[in-house]
């Protein structure tokens, strides 16, 4: 096989792989753009029989719950990311300082939580019975505030700051707090941006803690809203009374295309932002994977 045919066949291979990966997502978009009638008649199709913006019109016509969920998600993403970055950097910086006397025990203290944990049930009891955080925004932010993995990545970045800079600042009489906030943090802006993106994506996609701690409609983030929509619809479809209740209740729940439109609207911003930031992710992965 010549180099040219080899090249062509590898390209063909990847085009097929990429199609297989992208098409499932395209299907959801298509469904959201298909008229409800043709969905009932023909099922889900990649090329809608009849195109329609109806689903999106319905979503935006009564956007109350969607807007509130957007607000919750935006809030936890912004507050969570800022707080998480600050806390992570504040503990990663001493660990990264080779002249810090408690370097090794502190590293172990952080790292051990990556290897061992109390598991879901003790954590749930702590959060609800002792910290009383059920149904609060804090319950969505706190659990993922300090991931040991992020601390290790941050430490990897901070390792690269040359000790001479810190040294000379000390000679000038600067104290550690000042050095950290005035020199180290500004110097690590690229690192903070990369890690901040990771953290922000995590908060935007947050559903786990919401599933555990949120019942109150006021605090439902986007992903939990999607969970509820899908499980309600599925419950109806699979319950023995489905046929009886179908006609009666169908109107109360989002119809097929609206459901998918909701999913698209909820994850849209992420998908638009994602390609632009992929570069940073790749950098972060390279750092994180080569030495965690």
């Amino acid at each position, binding site marked *: 096989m010549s*180099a040219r045919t080899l090249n062509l066949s*590898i*390209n063909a291979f*990847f085009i097929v792989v990429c199609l297989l*990966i992208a098409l*499932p997502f395209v*299907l959801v978009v298509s469904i959201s753009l298909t008229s409800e009638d043709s969905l*009932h008649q023909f*099922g*889900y199709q990649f090329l809608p029989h009849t195109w329609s913006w109806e689903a999106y019109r319905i979503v935006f016509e009564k956007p109350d719950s969607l807007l509130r969920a957007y607000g919750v998600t935006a809030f936890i993403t912004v507050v969570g990311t800022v707080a998480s970055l600050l*806390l992570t950097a*504040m*503990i990663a*910086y*001493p660990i990264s300082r080779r*002249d810090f*006397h408690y370097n090794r025990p*502190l590293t172990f203290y*952080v790292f051990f*939580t990556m*290897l*061992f*944990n*109390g*598991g*879901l*049930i*003790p*954590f749930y*009891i*702590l959060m609800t*019975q002792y910290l009383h955080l059920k149904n609060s925004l804090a319950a969505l932010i706190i659990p993922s*505030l*300090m991931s040991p993995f992020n601390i290790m990545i941050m430490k990897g970045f901070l390792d690269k700051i040359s*000790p001479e800079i810190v040294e000379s600042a000390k000679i000038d009489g600067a104290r*550690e*707090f000042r050095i950290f906030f005035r020199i180290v943090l500004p110097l690590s802006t690229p690192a903070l941006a990369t890690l901040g993106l990771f953290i922000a994506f995590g908060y935007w*996609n947050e559903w*786990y803690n919401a599933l*555990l701690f949120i019942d109150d409609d006021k605090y439902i983030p986007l*992903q939990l809203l*999607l969970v509820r929509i*899908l499980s309600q619809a*599925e419950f109806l*479809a*699979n319950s023995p009374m489905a046929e009886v209740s179908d006609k009666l209740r169908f109107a109360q729940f989002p119809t*097929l295309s609206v459901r*998918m439109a909701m*999913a698209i609207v909820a*994850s849209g911003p992420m*998908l638009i932002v*994602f*390609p632009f930031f*992929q570069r940073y*992710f*790749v950098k972060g*992965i*390279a750092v994180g*994977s*080569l030495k965690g």
Partner: protein
Amino acid sequence: METGMPEPAKRRTRSRGKADAARPAAQSRIRREIRMFRKNRELLVLALPGILFKLVIAYVPMVGLILAFKNFRYDQGLFGSKWVGLDNFEFLFKAQDAFRIIRNTLLYNFTYIVTGTVAALLFALLLNELSGRMIKMYQTTMFLPFFLSMVLVGYIGNAFLDFDNGYLNKLLGYVGISPHNWYLEKTPWIFILPLVALWKGVGFSTLVYYAGITGISPDYYEAATLDGATRVQMMLRITLPLLKPLVIILFILGLGNIFRGDFGLHYFIPNNAGPNFPTTDIIDTYVYRALTKLGDINSAAAVGFLQSVVGLVTVVSANSIVRRIDRDNALF
């Protein structure tokens, strides 16, 4: 390099230490610790919020592992509840659930590790044979599912698996196979779940391996080209052997985490539908259901205890194997 302390001062301390040799060693050690503490206290204060946070969120729940040996009641609390010895474990293993969820967790995770590694390695090697702009595009496309939340993946799964409208049943209809009610069946999940896991994760792992390949020094390839090696030879004789440590390490670390299941994958894709539990339920989903539905919190605590402890053992042993292969790449 020791910082802060000027050289003469250090010498002075040392000589004074020698002169007072009669003084108990412990006392001088305490003194040194106090001095060290004062020297490092600012950095310590900087780390303090994080230390306290970890203490409450990560370390305090470890105490809760004792629940596995108690009959927990919300009104009696963690410490008030009665000790019951190994009763929770006995109940757990009698109920047969334990066997099922542990088997599912282990088998699925093992499948994910193997299929993920093989596919990602293959993709990375092939990507490396290409040049130009297309690489970026392939990477971006393959990476996309990684950023979708499992909830959204559940929606995508539903678009395929829905009984009435799903695309899969439609495809099967074309070849004359009658529609399946996927959410109510058991066997298909053995294939569906690994497929979804691969779809979601392969882009990420490919990037990791591809980053590893691009880290290989070009000198090897130049020398091989001079000797007239073909590209396939270079792939098999240079790239693969040099990538082997990374592959082995990630594989073993994956095995180390084999007791920790992917809750999102096993909860949203099978849509938490009872009839498919025999082939989809894993430790993590079981514990979650026991906690939130009216299930049995005591056996959930018992299985959670097993997961934490056995998980620690597997991670530590996986790491010690990695250490033996290549010290630099061990986690700790």
